[in-house]
């Protein structure tokens, strides 16, 4: 058992080694790089399963293995890894989805000349994500966190010759960095306040009762508890990574990378990191819940940010025409759901949704990748259509994913996890607003997913590319089928009738609820889902689009609103006008300061120096130099005289050596006797 904890580091280390192998092998060694990557991630998956079995044997415990990284002064910087059900479930999910995505990439990236680098970066990405999951220290987590950022930069900008890809990579990197700044400040503050960054350390970790008590007892500016402030700062990091409301702008642009990367980012790794982070530090976030006098709870902010994101993402998704963009905004929206769950106090529901979402979103992205691959990189759904005929497997699996995402009741996993979130929000007594916004998003989700499927797969092919589409090879469809199966089955782990996942995650047995307990909510959400699907069916499937240029029925009804949503609610423009302009203004101010104020001062100093120098030169020329010249001349003459001794003749040297020996020997004899 403890052995499993000690060797937990192998789970991220294996893909890291694969990345190193991929980095050093020559470019043409494609099979080596890909084989190493897949073998490593598959091994990680096996290890994760072992870790899961270990964790489930004792679900309430947080098994940690800590060690000193290095010592600074008296204290040591400690790192470690942690095994608890949360870690184990996440590891299994991430490594499993990653394995399937890696295999899918074999087919998808086959023609790419940088195939080898791709697998190197993928392995690095997976390694960093697994590092986040297993770390028992906020510092180690942050290191892996930044590695995820780096790997995402490399992967989003993988086709860096495309300007839009390069820009998207930059955008993703910089936007997440804004959130990371807050995160890092939070880490520093936490280290200062708690004296440790370990999560669990036998009673001294920051997530354990003693530390949490001191943290929530201290009050800082604005009457906030220290734990609240730190929690909010940490949440900044999650906002950036998980694409929450003000910083969600990078996520849709990240579609510029290859589709397997999008699947990896959206399903298993990058965006999940933020949700995982909040779930991991949930005790810290929730530490202020008991404080009656607190003006503001950290989790409240999480819930509201999540609600705004959920609704916003769904609204924008309705008006997008790019398959991957629709899916991207759906991810934004679903991440909002998870944040709602965290905010309203049910981190189990959040993780449940995270797991189910990982499977069906990976399925959807890989399905989209299959479509894109088949139709020669045509991503505009107006120019596709009618693919259900030639691409039966892709269609079937994509439809399963769509229904899971929409929350079609009772069969699909998305329903159960979303239901759990809605239920938790329903029971939240602070505000009803998140629940209302979430319910609104349910309708919209069902609507835009129906629209997506209808536009892509039904009707007639609307371009040459779509006409000549063909089913993808087995290396791509087999992962799809596996993921589709998982998308259905995974939901049954957490039904109210058999809440196995919840008891496994929390370590306390949870009694089964009757389905009738929240019957009104269930009925309501089922109705809403049916409304969304029905509306989508009516608008897009009954009367399929005839040509690629035809106007969207929604756009026809609400042209202004549709255009606003299609322009992604002008967030990029807003940021350009505010943050960007502020930045420009500040930069020009700095430039002016440099040029005028500091420049003037430097000018003055320089002029003074010049005067001093001129004075110095005059003195030198007239007085000192004459003396120095004479001395140097003398030195040169002496040197020339002595250099004559170096004749270059070996005989001479040997002779001098012999004579020197004789002289020394005579001296020794004369002074001899000793």
């Amino acid at each position: 058992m403890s052995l499993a904890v000690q060797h937990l580091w192998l789970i991220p280390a294996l893909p890291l080694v694969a990345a190193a192998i991929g980095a050093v092998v020559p470019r043409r060694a494609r099979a080596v790089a890909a084989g190493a990557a897949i073998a490593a991630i598959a091994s990680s998956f096996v290890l994760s399963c072992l870790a899961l079995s270990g964790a489930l044997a004792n679900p309430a415990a947080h098994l940690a293995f800590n060690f000193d990284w290095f010592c600074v002064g008296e204290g040591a910087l400690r790192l470690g890894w942690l095994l608890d059900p949360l870690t184990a479930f996440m590891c299994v999910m991430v490594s499993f989805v990653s394995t399937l995505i890696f295999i899918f990439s074999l087919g998808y990236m086959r023609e790419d000349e940088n195939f080898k680098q791709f697998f190197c970066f993928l392995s690095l990405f997976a390694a960093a994500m697994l590092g986040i999951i297993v770390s028992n220290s906020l510092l180690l987590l942050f290191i892996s966190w930044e590695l995820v950022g780096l790997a995402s930069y490399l992967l989003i900008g993988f086709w860096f010759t495309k300007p839009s890809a390069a820009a998207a990579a930059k955008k993703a990197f910089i936007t997440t960095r804004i959130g990371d700044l807050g995160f890092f400040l939070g880490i520093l503050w936490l280290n200062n306040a708690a004296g440790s960054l370990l999560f669990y350390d036998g009673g001294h970790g920051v997530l354990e009762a003693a530390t949490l008590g001191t943290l929530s007892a201290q009050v800082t500016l604005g009457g906030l508890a220290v734990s609240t402030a730190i929690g909010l700062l940490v949440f900044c990091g999650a906002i950036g990574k998980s694409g929450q409301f003000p910083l969600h702008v990078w996520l849709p642009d990240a579609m510029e990378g290859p589709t397997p990367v999008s699947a990896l980012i959206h399903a298993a790794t990058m965006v999940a990191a933020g949700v995982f982070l909040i779930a991991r530090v949930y005790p810290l976030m929730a530490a202020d819940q008991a404080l009656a006098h607190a003006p503001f709870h950290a989790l409240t902010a999480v819930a509201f940010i999540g609600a705004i994101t959920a609704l916003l993402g769904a609204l924008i998704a309705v008006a997008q025409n790019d398959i991957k963009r629709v899916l991207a905004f759906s991810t934004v929206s679903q991440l909002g759901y998870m944040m709602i769950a965290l905010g309203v106090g049910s981190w189990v529901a959040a993780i449940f949704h995270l797991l189910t979402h990982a499977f069906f979103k990976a399925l959807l992205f890989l399905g989209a990748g299959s479509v894109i691959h088949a139709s020669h990189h045509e991503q505009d759904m107006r120019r596709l259509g009618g693919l259900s005929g030639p691409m039966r497997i892709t269609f079937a699996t994509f439809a399963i994913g769509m229904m899971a995402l929409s929350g079609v009741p009772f069969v699909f996993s998305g329903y159960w996890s979303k239901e759990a979130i809605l239920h938790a929000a329903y029971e939240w007594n602070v505000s009803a607003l998140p629940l209302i916004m979430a319910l609104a998003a349910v309708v919209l989700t069902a609507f835009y997913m129906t629209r997506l499927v209808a536009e892509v797969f039904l009707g007639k092919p609307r371009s040459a590319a779509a006409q000549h589409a063909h089913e993808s090879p087995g290396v791509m469809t087999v992962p799809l089928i596996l993921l589709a199966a998982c998308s259905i089955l995974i939901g049954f782990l957490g039904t109210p009738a058999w809440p196995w996942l919840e008891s496994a995650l929390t370590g306390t047995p949870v009694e089964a609820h009757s389905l009738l307990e929240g019957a009104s909510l269930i009925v309501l959400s089922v109705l809403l889902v049916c409304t969304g699907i029905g509306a989508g069916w009516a608008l897009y499937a009954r009367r399929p689009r005839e040509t690629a240029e035809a106007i969207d029925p929604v756009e026809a009804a609400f042209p202004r609103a549709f255009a606003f949503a299609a322009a992604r609610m002008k967030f990029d423009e807003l940021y350009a006008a505010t943050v960007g302009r502020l930045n420009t203004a500040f930069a020009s101010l700095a430039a002016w300061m440099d040029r005028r104020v500091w420049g003037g001062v430097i000018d003055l100093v320089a002029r003074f120096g010049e005067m001093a120098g001129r004075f110095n030169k005059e003195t030198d020329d007239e007085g000192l130099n004459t003396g120095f010249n004479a001395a140097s001349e003398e030195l040169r003459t002496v040197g020339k005289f002595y250099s004559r001794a170096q004749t270059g003749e070996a005989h001479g040297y040997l002779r001098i050596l012999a004579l020197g020996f004789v002289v020394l020997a005579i001296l020794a004899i004369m002074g001899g006797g000793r």
Partner: protein
Amino acid sequence: MTTALLLLICLVTLGSAATAMLLRNLIHSVLLLIGSWIGVAIFYLSCGAEFVAFAQLLVYVGAVSMVVLFAVLLTRRSRTDVTVSADTVSRAWSAVMAGGAVLAVLLYGALMTTLPAASAHGPAAPVKQLGAELMGIHAASLLVIGMILTVATLGSVVIASEEPSGKKEDAP
């Protein structure tokens, strides 16, 4: 009898060495020097240093002599490589003087010091003990020597095979 034998070996060795240094024929000089090396080896043998004697034979007579002979043949222009230049005589005089001075000092040291009159003591060290010491307390030195030999071999190959820039060797 032992002393007489030693004396004879000494005389042969010194004689061949001195003749080697006086001869004009380079090959003869080298062969005589090899003779004096053999003499030194026999001297070692008579001193009871078997191992060193055989090592001396193997290294000097087997290896160094071959290198020297190859070098002589590679750098030889005519059969008798002698051009008596003006400074030969003066250099010879200075050499004899320097050598004589050193010899005087050395002999003074060797003869005027009261040395223990002991003759050879005990049996010489067996080769096995030698090996044990080489691999034991002197292992580090052995490694260093191995290193030096390797580097010297590589270095001499590089030096000897280097073509002067610009000037190409005439094809043979």
